[in-house]
């Protein structure tokens, strides 16, 4: 990289090995990991869950759990060895040299202390008196670009939004001017627009404060955006390491290649072909493997790979890969062949019907759907008169940040939540009762859901066989040999095996658990399945397989999907049409190509530009001002006006709520700005970059 390394690296990890002692047995979870982070460098560690990335971070400052220990190798921070430090020295290291920022800002802050005092404490430890410390705390808040400093200083953590709390945590971490800042999934718990702001902030502060950053994330795009060097971890081993652009553009390890292919990119869609998935599973943490740890999932593996662990081959300037076949890694065989047209599922071109009238009749009609939680002064409006329809056989993607009402809409449709009086829900021309009790068994059968978190959606005391049989018994009315037959069919179609049937959910991996949940949803032969963030709790390599499965099942069973996700890449891959929600209101609805391609609602524009992408630089980011307003007290007029970068100067946005109007055939936008003007504005922004 640069010559800045001259003064010696800030962090040097050499052949690090970390072991957890579980049930009297040593399980190595990090093996032979070596890397260096030079001064002012930003180094990214990427890996799936169980890859050992957080364990490494904890080992650096000796925060390992009681049963964990560094069993080999060395660590040097500014040339000093934290493993050999005494109590006082270690405290000093943690106080002044290394700072950490964790995933959940809410849990990193002391709930009984005002934010200002918590930051000031860092300065008091450094020897300042109380007033001076408070003054410095204010400066820090200014640095992390908090506008309303007075309020935040005197706020308790629960009074801050997630993004605001993470800023406070970052302010605390930087207050001691550490030479190394470790960020462990700092934006994973945040919404896309907030994530983008935090990432910009960190990037800016790094320049300004000359801090060295170790950035840990499962999100490849975030790491690509934030770091100049990356290390890819797999099952506790660093399989590839090098400059970020090289690792992502010219990967030389089959795992990196496979991982990148798992992500839907460059506008890839389900009718063009399935996503590549990495076959097999992550090895059990702590299992000892002879040879290459990735060999059993690698289609390039040869006999040599299974015999001896590959050394780190130099494959470029400061770019190494632990693979015997690193020269052929890029030609890793595809698991899915690209097909054109064959896989077109559902009415792929329905919504493009001439004159805006869809060629296919709707299967679900939603009219003035509202939902208010609570009553009186404390009531919160989660949905405000949403009108839309879902077409037979399509996938409708539902997009929006947390609190936008996506899940409430889905639950109201399913009958799990009672909507307000006056809301109309129709399924296949028949009215749907507000609650589940009023719905006949046929309607229960028609509408099913795949929940976000299979741990929560599957009864952990029941066997897989019981879990999948239950809908067959209840909804399909099967029993005896016909039930067994259908059960086996289902198990095969979600690509599970007979041996899984006797297991309980706790004994399955995340991906398998989600397959059980999908089998349950399809058991009764539904016509519409709600997918509520079905892959957000899963690792990237597993996500691809689940998305493929959902697309295959849709093609086979002709079901309609209501697909909820915050991951726009995933939504784009699977959806025929997109609905964008903000504060319980529908802001945009239209065919996926039009919504993504633009012109689009300014909010959609901001959402799209906030998502970090692996496909090189995209148009300049549209910055959203401020926070998502509270649904308890939504803004007047257009609900988005408080954050809208394209707000009209006439004042109309503040006073009148724009109606949802059809601006193009099948494409509806709720905005005062005329479509031609939007096209011009957004076209200009794209051209500028």
């Amino acid at each position, binding site marked *: 990289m640069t010559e800045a390394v001259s003064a010696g690296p800030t962090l040097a990890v050499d052949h690090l090995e970390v072991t*957890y002692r*579980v*049930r009297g047995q040593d*399980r190595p979870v990090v093996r032979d990991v070596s890397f260096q982070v030079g001064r002012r460098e930003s180094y990214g560690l990427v890996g799936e*869950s*169980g890859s*050992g*990335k*957080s*364990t490494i971070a*904890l080992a650096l400052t000796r925060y390992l*759990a009681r049963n964990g220990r560094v069993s080999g190798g060395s660590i040097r921070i500014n040339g000093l060895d934290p493993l050999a430090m005494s109590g006082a020295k270690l405290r000093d290291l943690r106080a002044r040299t290394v700072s950490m920022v964790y*995933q959940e800002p809410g849990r990193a802050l002391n709930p009984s202390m005002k934010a200002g005092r918590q930051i000031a404490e860092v300065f008091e430890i450094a020897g300042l008196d109380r007033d001076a410390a408070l003054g410095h705390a204010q400066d820090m808040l200014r640095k992390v670009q908090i506008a309303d400093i007075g309020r935040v200083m005197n706020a308790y953590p629960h009074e801050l939004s997630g993004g605001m709390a993470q800023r406070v945590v970052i302010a605390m971490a930087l207050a001691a001017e550490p030479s190394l800042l470790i960020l*462990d*999934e700092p934006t*994973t718990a945040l*919404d896309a627009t907030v994530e983008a702001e935090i990432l910009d902030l960190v990037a800016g502060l790094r320049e300004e404060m000359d801090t060295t950053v170790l950035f840990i*994330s*499962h*999100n490849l795009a975030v790491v690509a955006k934030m770091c100049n060097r990356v290390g890819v971890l797999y099952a506790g081993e660093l399989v590839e390491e090098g400059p970020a652009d090289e690792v992502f553009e010219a990967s030389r390890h089959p795992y990196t290649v496979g991982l990148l292919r798992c992500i839907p990119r460059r506008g890839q869609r389900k009718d063009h072909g399935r996503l590549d998935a990495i076959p097999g599973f992550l090895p*059990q*943490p*702590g299992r000892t493997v002879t040879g290459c740890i990735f060999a059993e999932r690698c289609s390039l593996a040869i006999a040599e790979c299974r015999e001896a662990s590959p050394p780190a081959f130099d494959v470029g300037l400061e770019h190494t890969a632990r693979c015997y076949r690193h020269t052929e890694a890029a030609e890793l065989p595809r698991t899915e062949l690209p097909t054109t047209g064959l896989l077109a599922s559902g009415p792929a071109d329905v919504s493009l019907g001439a004159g805006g009238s869809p060629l296919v009749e709707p299967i679900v009609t939603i009219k003035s759907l509202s939902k208010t939680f609570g009553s009186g002064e404390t009531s919160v409006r*989660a949905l405000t008169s949403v009108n839309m329809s879902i077409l037979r056989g399509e996938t409708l993607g539902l997009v929006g940040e*947390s*609190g936008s009402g996506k*899940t409430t809409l889905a*639950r109201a449709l*399913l*009958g*799990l939540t009672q909507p307000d009086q006056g809301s109309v829900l129709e399924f296949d021309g028949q009215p749907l009762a507000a609650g*589940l009790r009023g719905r006949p*068994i046929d309607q*229960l059968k028609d*509408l*099913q*859901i795949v*929940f*976000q*978190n299979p741990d*929560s*959606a*599957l*009864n952990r*005391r029941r066997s897989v066989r019981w879990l999948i049989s*239950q*809908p067959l018994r*209840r*909804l399909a009315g099967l029993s005896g040999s016909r039930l067994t037959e259908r059960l086996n069919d289902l198990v095969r179609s979600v690509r599970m095996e007979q041996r899984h049937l006797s297991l*309980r959910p*706790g*004994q399955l991996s*995340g991906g398998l658990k989600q397959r059980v949940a999908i089998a*349950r949803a399809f058991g*009764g032969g539904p016509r519409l399945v709600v997918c509520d*963030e079905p892959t*957000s*709790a*899963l690792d990237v390599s597993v996500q691809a397989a689940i998305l493929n499965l959902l697309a295959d099942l849709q093609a086979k069973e002709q079901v309609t999907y209501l697909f909820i996700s*915050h991951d726009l890449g995933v939504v784009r891959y699977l959806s025929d049409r997109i609905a964008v929600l903000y504060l319980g209101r529908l802001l945009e609805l239209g065919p996926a190509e039009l919504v993504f391609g633009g012109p689009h609602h300014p909010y959609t524009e901001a959402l799209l530009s906030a998502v970090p992408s692996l496909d090189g630089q995209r148009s300049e980011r549209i910055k959203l001002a401020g926070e998502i307003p509270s649904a308890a007290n939504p803004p007047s007029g257009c609900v988005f006006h408080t954050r809208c970068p394209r707000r009209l100067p006439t004042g109309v946005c503040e006073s009148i709520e724009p109606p949802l109007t059809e601006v193009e055939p099948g494409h509806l936008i709720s905005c005062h700005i005329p479509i031609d003007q939007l096209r011009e504005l957004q076209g200009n922004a794209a051209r500028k970059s």
Partner: protein
Amino acid sequence: MTELTAAPGEAAVAHAFAAPPAQWRLLLRKPTFIIGAAVLLFWLMCAIFGHLIAPLDPLAQQLLAKNTGPSGAHLFGTDSLGRDVLSRVIVGARDILLIAPLATLLGVVCGTAIGLAMGYFGGVIDVVLGRVVEAVLALPVVIVAFLFIVAVGPSSLTLIIVVGFIFTPLIARTVRTAVLVESQLDYLSSARLLGERPGYIMFAEILPNVLPVIVVEFTVRLGYAIFAVATLSFLGFGVQQPTPDWGGDIAANYGLLGAGYWWETLFPALAIASLVMALNLVTDSIEQVISS
């Protein structure tokens, strides 16, 4: 409305090692469990085969040998009526080990049903049952027990009902809390979407998941039940003399402590203490294994 986004952290690693079925085998590796279970087993054998084990007839009076201290003929000595204390202690295990578990079981069954209903339905049912539970808890236990026993007359069945009734609200509260945690989970929505009835959801879906809590509650309450039964017997409301009974024997002989006849009180008291302690050891181990 919060959204759990991706990336389960390293916590998942530690969790992956824990396979549920192996948990119960862990119990056998705990010395506290082994000791507790051994003592418990001893008293159970006494309760079942007491008359066969006892060296002498616990009811046989020897008026010539009353109040004799521990000796070769009477290891624990004799009481004021010349009955063999050791035999009475051994046989005395029977009634308390019958009444206390049955009473606890009654309390657990009723408490679980009420707790499930409160936690699952919430709303009005929770409020109404909650008030009833609080009202029962507010009554002075001993007075309720006395009134009941005086009205119905002392018998083993009365004791079971009284102690079960006192335990019901306590167990209901614990179960309700556990059910509330489960109510947050999606598998209940999933069951509702299959058209399952509330009764089925409560007993077939939720109950297996709160069972560990109920098991712990049962063992904890069992210890208290033994105390309660022994106390009521001591006060004369339980097992009636001359049937051998620890509480009753202490009551009959404690007046003679001042005369130096300590063995007549000490050995039944030790029996109660060892049984409760054994139960607590077992309970502790089970709790540790469940929560690990």
